[in-house]
């Protein structure tokens, strides 16, 4: 499934327990299904991310629930 990042933001004043500098976003698949995601980045790469980039979404298990992670196809 190909996902498109339809918007994103780098959070510098985070919600605990996160540390500043993570990127959140909304991703949409080919069927127009939308998911709240975190965007996988190696470091602060805001300049390399843009609205409309394609990628895949993987699910990371957490102690409570799971995290949707958008992995850009750079």
């Amino acid at each position, binding site marked *: 499934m190909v996902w498109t990042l*339809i*918007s*994103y*933001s*780098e*959070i*510098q*004043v*985070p*919600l*605990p327990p*996160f540390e500043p500098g*993570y990127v*959140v*976003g*909304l991703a949409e698949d080919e069927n127009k299904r*939308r*998911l*709240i*995601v*975190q965007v996988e980045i190696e470091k602060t790469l*805001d300049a390399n991310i843009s*609205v*409309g980039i394609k990628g895949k979404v993987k699910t990371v298990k*957490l102690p*409570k*629930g799971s*995290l*949707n992670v958008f992995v850009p196809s750079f």
Partner: protein
Amino acid sequence: MKTCIAATAHTRFGKLEEGIGDLMARCYQDLLRDASLDIGDIDASYIANFSSHFSSQCHLSALLSSGLHSRHESTRVETACASGGTALKQASIAIASGLYDVIAVVGVEKMTIRPTEETTSILSYAGSEIERRHGITFPGLFALMARRHFHDYGTSETDLAKIAVKNHKNALSNPNAHFHKSITDDDVLGSRIIASPLKLLDCAPISDGAAAVLLCNENAARRLTDIPVYMSGIAQETDYLGLDEREALTTMPAVVNASTKAFNASGVTPRDVDVAELHDCFTIAELIEIEDVGFCSKGAGKELIAEGATNLDGEIPINPSGGLKARGHPVGATGVAQVAEIVKQLRGEADRRQVTDAEIGLCCNVGGSGGTAVVSIFSR
């Protein structure tokens, strides 16, 4: 039977010493003084308040009775940042039903007693669990809307900066405003990132404060004031909680629908509005609401701002009080403070921030990232 506003009260917004109970009671007493009434003349009260987490205090209705040393009916109302508008809507229904003649609506929030990190968490409770789990703050939600608006309509960070600059300028003439500080586009653009592309000066501050208005029917208004302000239309709309559940990020359907209903009820159009208080919790929120209320087409908000049409002397002055951005944003008080400002404007009592010949005013109060919207229209 028409619903009228006969009196208003407004504490200073900012970092205040008083606790939530004292703040609420003082504002209420100011309202009674403004109307030359005693508590016994009030049939019922509605209290707008977002979260008991800030002050570790629930049951504000009984707290108000204690603060006023008087037993009377009051009810707390909550729809996040739209609590004030919703309390106003409930009060207007009670007046229109004929059950009550005179109702006080008081909005209050005491926020500055918590550290920013904790406040950020409390505010996030107005969003969805999945948003919180992914670390999306409230600035983050509006940042997602801003980024998409930039992409779809060519809006820029400078366009948003002009909104903050205008609202800070207006607040210079508002003695109750949180900020009395002039800022420039460069100040906004150079302020630190909170959630890109939104920066510190794109965001409303964390404030304490209270505001109150007195609603009554037309008969009571004749007794209580020489200058009644009429509520010609009010509408509330409730959307889905999460941004991922909406069809688009660049519009808030609750605002669009509440505006349409309020305009239909009042018999006026956006072109007839002389002054508006919009819910600028973030600069992008004011821009989206300018478009969603119908002051211009979608995407054209930036031109309206660039032309100065939303300035105090412009075609449609927006947020003469300074808005949430500079007047301050004690969440539960905000929707009530908007109405207090519009009443002052329509009565010609807004001093140096007075909009010339204001006859029709509009308030747009938004909860969460657009999950609730209350739009009210007033005339003199």
